[in-house]
């Protein structure tokens, strides 16, 4: 996507929260782009700052420093006045769509609401558009008359997606949109997102904590650890030839059918807090050196469109990154 103006660009974003006596650096120098029609997966463990990035992109939070550009224009400029153009173009899908909808209003009303607010349609045209949106997410248009608590979790998630699509957005911000679903429903919603990308060319910032699910959907992937980007690059490359030890840990922790102990192994080296200086992953890192505990590594290019914030990224060759799953000593399952 190098020669195309990115749809969305995040540049050196920082966001710190003050919670009582503690300050939390939720987002530290995060930079990445989302191209038109591209799905960028954002992974990392809970607390790594993914939702804060989503909130910054949605304009729900303001960065302490750094900038967000959409279509080449800075976000504060786009949000000035009503900010309607931006708010129509960038839509959110959350984990719990039942909760995101007004329980006293019908599903159809929730889907129609953005169309009414933005004065896109009314009357019969509005009803027709709602029916069309329900069909687009493979729901029976008759569901428009139901209330959120009367539909299943999978149906609610589809309805949430229909609402997000109502204004024909260029970018969907999906925060854990499939994380709470049973695997068969999860697969259906993943398929729906792929279909939306293909049919409408919608770009997505897709946040999840399941590496296999995000890899399946994403064109490119951003791996966050403790507020910063540990690694980013083409999704397949990040998963098959990771260049950051944290990405490698995520890969080794993914469920698998290899018998015997997990290659991730028990890692009890983890202290409670994060180090104040140096690489934040150092206390858990199997490759840690003395330098890692003092120098905060900046992202470095390790391949085409692929970067890693590990001082030892150069030593993490393909051969070295993938053997663990196959070489661990095996204990028989009990």
């Amino acid at each position: 996507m190098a020669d195309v103006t990115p749809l969305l660009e995040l540049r050196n974003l920082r966001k710190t929260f003050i919670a009582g006596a503690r300050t939390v650096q939720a987002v530290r120098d995060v930079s990445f782009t989302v191209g038109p029609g591209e799905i960028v997966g954002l992974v990392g463990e809970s607390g790594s700052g993914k939702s804060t990035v989503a909130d910054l992109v949605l304009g729900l939070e303001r960065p302490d420093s750094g900038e967000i550009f959409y279509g080449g224009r800075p976000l504060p400029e786009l949000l000035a006045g009503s900010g309607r153009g931006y708010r129509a173009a960038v839509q959110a899908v959350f984990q719990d769509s039942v909760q995101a909808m007004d329980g006293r209003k019908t599903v159809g009303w929730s889907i129609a609401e953005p169309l009414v607010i933005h004065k896109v349609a009314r009357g019969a045209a509005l009803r027709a558009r709602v029916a069309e949106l329900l069909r687009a997410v493979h729901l029976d248009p008759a569901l428009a008359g139901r209330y959120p608590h009367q539909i299943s979790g999978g149906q609610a998630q589809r309805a949430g997606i229909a609402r997000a699509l109502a204004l024909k957005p260029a970018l969907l911000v999906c925060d854990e949109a499939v994380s709470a679903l049973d695997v068969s429903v999860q697969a259906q919603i993943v398929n729906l997102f792929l279909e939306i990308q293909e049919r409408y060319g919608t770009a997505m910032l897709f946040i999840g904590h399941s590496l296999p699910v995000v890899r399946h959907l994403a064109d490119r992937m951003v791996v966050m650890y403790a507020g910063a980007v540990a690694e980013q690059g083409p999704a397949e490359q990040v998963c098959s030839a990771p260049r950051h030890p944290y990405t490698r840990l995520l890969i080794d922790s993914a469920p698998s059918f290899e018998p015997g102990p997990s290659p991730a192994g028990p890692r009890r080296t983890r202290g409670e807090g994060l180090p104040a200086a140096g690489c934040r992953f150092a206390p858990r890192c199997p490759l840690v050196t003395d330098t890692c505990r003092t120098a905060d590594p900046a992202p470095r290019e390790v391949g085409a469109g692929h970067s890693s914030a590990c001082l030892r990224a150069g030593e993490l060759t393909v051969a070295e990154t993938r053997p663990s799953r196959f070489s661990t000593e095996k204990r028989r399952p009990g």
Partner: protein
Amino acid sequence: MSPILSVRGLTVRYPGTARPAVEGVGFDLEPGATVAVVGESGSGKSTVALAVSRLLGPAVAVRAETMTFEGRDLLGLGREELRRLRAGRIAMVFQSPSGSWNPTRTIGAQLVDGLRAAGRWPERRDALVALLSRVGIHDPESRLNDYPHRFSGGMLQRAMIAGALVTEPSLLIADEPTSALDTTVQAEILEILDELRAERDLAMILISHDLGVVARLARHTLVLYGGRTVERGPTAEIYRHRGHPYTQGLLAAVPRLDGPRKTPLPAMAQGPVAHSGCVFAPRCPRAEDRCRTSEPALRPVGGIEVACHLAGEPGREPAWRM
């Protein structure tokens, strides 16, 4: 070896419901062995766990042909015997880290309560501290004074596991112990559980909605759908044969790190649990007339047991094989 837990024909019906939540479930568990119970939400996994640990209230109808633990009939135990059993020999770990702890009391106070109830306080004090450290809690002596909100979800689950194992139970029932946690923490905690099982000859019922999560740890697996056992056998064989279309669907729906990308996932259709015939027929892509009229019994098919009329018939490829 004689089983530590033996369950046959377990049937559970909640008050005010038309159909049993669990029907005819059975399995044997040897000392030091792990059985995985898998299925989507509502399939009856937690009901099996609660029935075995006798945590269901008197209004819930629990019946079984056999349900013996260490040779004793679990359904025939008196109140006092039950209390002692639950405080010592059978331990449970639940899914919700926060829901299992009282926010107004320290972690230490709540762990001590557990030991007192089992009549093992202060005798097991040092063992508790050692276990906390073993499951990955640093500086346990000082962490015991913390309130639950100072612990992450993973730390609460670790503390719960230590509290469950400190009475030296012979059976641990873990109901989705890591489903709410990050995958890295999940992998670590499951690994620790498996180590402790091997060391202590602990038998384990490990419940999960994801077969991939428990496959490493459990030699045997029970797949539930609509309260029925649809497939049962050695985990490796189930993975190899995928005898039941439901198991095939579950496995195929989950993307794998070494699988294809950006292609539609083979996603099972949704549908109700059938009241007659095969419970899975309304969602099954292979269902025939007989599936809608007669209920298939669990029967041996190539090393596993499958409750499907079509299983093992020649020329039938699994519908969802990737």
